[in-house]
């Protein structure tokens, strides 16, 4: 099982959540909203490109839209491997957080 990195995970989840409306702008908004930080466009594109290279994502071009000066969007979609990776990471998360003592700041010793 290959483990995803955190940003990769964030992006894959965002794309999964957006379903048919996943392109750079919406993905970035989504990730910004979840993490509460502003992701630069560069970081967005690089992560997306890396995911495409690892075959977790595929991309296609949408019809040109009026809003963007007649330019089309590059839409992203999860592949089978992508979905499998997400399921794996979800299982991992659950097993990590399974059966641990109650976690709070007051339990810190120092």
């Amino acid at each position: 099982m290959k483990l995803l990195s955190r940003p990769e995970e964030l992006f894959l989840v965002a794309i999964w959540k957006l379903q048919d409306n996943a392109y750079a702008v919406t993905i970035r908004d989504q990730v910004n909203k979840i993490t509460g930080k502003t992701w630069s466009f560069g970081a967005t594109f690089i992560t997306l490109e890396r995911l495409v290279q690892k075959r977790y994502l595929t991309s296609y071009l949408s019809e040109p839209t009026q809003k963007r000066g007649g330019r089309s969007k590059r839409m992203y979609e999860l592949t089978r491997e992508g979905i499998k990776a997400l399921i794996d990471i979800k299982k991992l998360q659950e097993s990590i957080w399974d059966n641990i003592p109650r976690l709070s700041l007051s339990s810190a010793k120092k």
Partner: protein
Amino acid sequence: MKKKSLPGPPRLAERLLKQFFPDEGIFTTIGDLEEVYQSIAEEKGSAKARFWYRSQVFKSIFSYYKNQLLWSTVMFKNYLVFTSRLIKRDKFHYFLNFLGLSTGIACCIITMLFLRNELTYDQHHTNADRIYRISSNYVTSGKPLLYANTSPALGPRLKEEYPEIEDFVRVLPLPELLFRQGDRRLYQERIVFADASILKVFTHPLLQGDVETCLENPNTIVLTETLARRYFGDENPMGKVIQVENQDDLTVTGVIKNPPRNSHVPIKGIISYSSWGMDQLALNVSMYEPSVYTYVLLPEQYNLATFYEKFPPFYEKYCKADEELYGQVYKLIFLNLKDIHYNCRFQIRNAVGEQILYLRIFLHRHIHPCFGMCQLCKYGHRPLFHSGPGDRDEKSIRVEQKGSGLPTSG
């Protein structure tokens, strides 16, 4: 309501951006940026949006060029590794390759040097187009008998009969001469007797001395730079005396620049023609006794056909009388200075420096295989520098995967 009046993103920045992205024509990324730009413009006003857009582009400029640099060097290193592995795997083949390539390059360089030498032969004379060497053709019972030299009387006679001939030079090459100056006694080759006009017709720039007078008087000599230095060191050679063959004293009246080696008359010293001692006598020598090389300077665009038309009277006057005695018909051949070395189609007796007939054979025999050798090394030609990660084609991706351990993304 404001949506319509919103100005577009900054033009210059947009154009710059288009250069960065390899998927030109689709510009999805630019579309994304524009969308965000518009949403910022709606929220915070267009000035802020423009600032944001510009800063985005500005930031990407540096990383764009950094990436390019990174990619080119990374690929370069990768190719080195790749090549060394290929060589290890297939030593014999690569040995052949390198042998072929080095032989090919070496041959090409040698050929280039040789050709440069040959093609600039005699080209340093500014009048080269108009200088002709006259060769003699003694037609003996219908067959040509060619000599590169002519009678010493030909030059003055031609000049007399044909006013259109601007100048003539008689050159008589000498065997090795013993030069003596003080304690130095050296044999000197490539010394000629020549008319004073040699300095005007040919291009031999005088460093010292006067063009008009330096070869006028008997027993004067003009030396090349090297020769002057050899006999007189750093002293001024002008007016000094060199003794030749232990009998004649020659006064140095001029110093010329060293002529290039690729000249068919590679002179090192010019002794005035009047020092010959036989120069007056030679004016009456028959046209059938070739001894000196005669060069003439013709006017520009001169048509040699007109000369041949006017030749019969000349023949009547000077050659007819001897025709029976020698049993030969005398004809003149004009050969342009530029053609003497390179383009001479016939063999001539007593000719200086006509070795070039074999050039074509040389080209066919040697140059062709050279390029063949180079073809041996077709292997392993790959683009050395990539302009950026976006330009990767399939081939380079394949190489990249083999190389492994490289950053796969800019």
